[in-house]
């Protein structure tokens, strides 16, 4: 059932599996959606979609598949609006007892029949049609103990199509938003297992061994617990063209500071030359050579920049954008040095990937470092590249 929804989700790159699809079928056969499109919307979303980042894609897929359906909820709203225009009915106790009493099943059957037969006129005070002040079994503000009430409760489920149309989860899409927390999530991927911290986990084998050597006198042997950690160096472009991305980069930086104990970070201006800066205003310089020599090869290195510069900035001695800055070696050589020095280096680019091929400097830098977009999905691929052996 609803295989087209499954396909539409797949087409949009939502990772739905056959397994989850079967759970949904199971849920439908248990009648959990209760033949309501709105319930189906939420039920299918809970089963098929596992992160709010995909809610927007789900909304779109849902619209594709069901957008053309006039749901009965719309119909009910129309009826409700008409009913609201009319004053309520007052009945005496006797009158109430006179009202015919029907079982719920019968009422339902009649209700559907009524809906099918009902024309557009308003019904007031009748015994059969859906209207107000009536004694029929369907309608609003009327009186029948077993009647079906239509749309008088607050907080009804909203129409599924309308909810999907609102696409209120647009902001949660993972190719758009990148807040500190999601960056942390990605960075925590690159941590690796090491033994560290206080010696607080019992080494049973060692203990038994030592105790035996001790002729039965207990001797506990403790070891450091295994923990995950990562050594990371961030090199961030603070050049002029990066201005629109300052916010993003500072979020990346603050996330990294939180999650990475051994974090080294430096700034550069458009391209790396013989000096790196420890502050964003580029006042305090340190020698790039020294940084490279003193940092362990095991550091993972992430360069963040738009890789957007004049080719001369990359290729010529003294090509730096700052006129007074003299560099004997062209930037590209420094970049190659970084590439050679560390095992794992990636470049994160805040500009959209489709622009890269049209920028010569980006193309060149892409040949040196694997380059990823500074979005959640781009960072995820980058993180994967960093931990690959």
């Amino acid at each position, binding site marked *: 059932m609803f295989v087209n929804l499954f396909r539409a989700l797949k087409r949009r790159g939502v990772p739905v599996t056959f397994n989850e699809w079967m*759970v949904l079928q199971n849920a439908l056969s248990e009648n959990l959606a209760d033949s309501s499109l709105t*319930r189906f919307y939420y039920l299918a979303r809970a089963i098929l*979609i596992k992160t709010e980042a995909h809610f927007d894609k789900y909304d779109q897929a849902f619209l594709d598949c069901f957008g053309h359906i006039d749901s009965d909820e719309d119909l009910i709203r129309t009826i409700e609006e008409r009913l609201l225009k009319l004053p309520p009915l007052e009945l005496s106790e006797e009158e109430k007892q006179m009202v015919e009493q029907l079982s719920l099943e019968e009422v339902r059957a009649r209700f559907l029949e009524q809906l099918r037969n009902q024309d557009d006129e308003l019904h007031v005070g009748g015994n059969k049609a859906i209207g107000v002040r009536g004694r029929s079994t369907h309608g609003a503000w009327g009186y029948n103990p077993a009647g079906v009430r239509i749309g008088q409760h607050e907080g009804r*489920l909203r129409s599924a199509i309308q909810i999907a149309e609102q696409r209120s989860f647009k902001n949660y899409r993972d190719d758009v938003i990148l807040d500190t*927390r999601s960056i*942390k*999530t990605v960075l925590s991927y690159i941590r690796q297992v090491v033994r560290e911290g206080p010696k607080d986990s019992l080494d049973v084998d060692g*203990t038994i061994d030592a105790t035996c050597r001790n002729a039965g006198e*207990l001797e506990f042997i403790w070891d450091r617990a295994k923990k*995950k950690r990562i050594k990371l160096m961030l090199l961030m472009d603070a050049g002029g063209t990066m201005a629109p991305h300052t916010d993003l980069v500072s979020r990346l930086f603050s996330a990294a500071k939180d999650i990475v104990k051994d974090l080294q970070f430096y700034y550069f201006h458009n391209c790396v030359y013989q000096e790196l800066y420890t502050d964003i205003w580029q006042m305090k310089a340190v020698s790039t050579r020294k940084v490279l020599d003193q940092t362990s090869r095991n550091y993972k290195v992430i360069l963040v920049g738009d890789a957007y510069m004049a080719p001369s900035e990359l290729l010529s001695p003294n090509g730096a954008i700052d006129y007074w800055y003299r560099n004997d070696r062209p930037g590209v050589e420094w970049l190659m040095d970084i590439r050679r020095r560390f095992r794992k280096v990636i470049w994160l680019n805040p500009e959209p990937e489709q622009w890269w091929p049209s920028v010569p400097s980006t193309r060149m830098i892409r040949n040196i470092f694997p380059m990823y977009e500074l979005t959640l999905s781009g960072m995820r691929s980058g993180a994967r590249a960093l931990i690959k052996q």
Partner: protein
Amino acid sequence: MNRFKGINRYILSDALREIVNAAIVLQRPLLLKGEPGTGKTELAQVIAEDLKLRLIRWNIKSTSKASEGLYVYDTVQRLNDSRFHDKDVSDIKQYIKLGKLGEALRSEEQVVLLIDEIDKADLEFPNDLLFELDQMSFDIVETGEYFKAKHRPIVVITSNSEKELPDAFLRRCLFHYIDFPDSSMMEKIAKVHFPNLRHNLLSQILARFYFIRQRHELKKRPSTSELLDWIQAILAGGITEEELNKRLPFLGVLLKTEDDVAKVAVH
């Protein structure tokens, strides 16, 4: 099986109610995400209360290990006892201490198991739980015992998205993202907590609250619990609608960093 209907003091959306029932019928863990203060943890308590089941709460910490949730084998105690011949050390059972998950699986009657803030633990933690949550059974290796739950517990898992959860784990859960309540929902929530609050004052408070929340540059946006504290403070301080219009009193209750207070107070 009883249907979950909800209880008075906890306002919940119809969608969430249906999903809780779906999770119970389909016997799948329910994973809840959402901003802090949207009542994720509270929901498990409410389910337990409504269905009259016992709640077992497993609070996850960064040091939590999946195996500890099932049981802990107290090696040190046993080694100690063997040294001093205090107890019969060949009876391993006495050194097995059940964890929260183990307790839930061994329970005679159905329970609600809350695994709170699962994202705090290490990245592999959820994967280590897969088998036990699927089969609702576990082995105690040291004694060769095997337990299978008589009634599958209703499992509620909350996450603050500090870490992403593994796909294999997600596939087995139902997922719901609790939206931050809109102002009409928030009005109901506030009325549950402050039944005597004047309507005008409340709408004024809510208007100010959502005005502050909409400012995106805030480091930490105030949540429901902070709003309730704020209402309490405003009531205690006897602040009127007119005063509220002119200034924002007790900002420190709503905003928890100096920067945020400064940003809002300027206005």
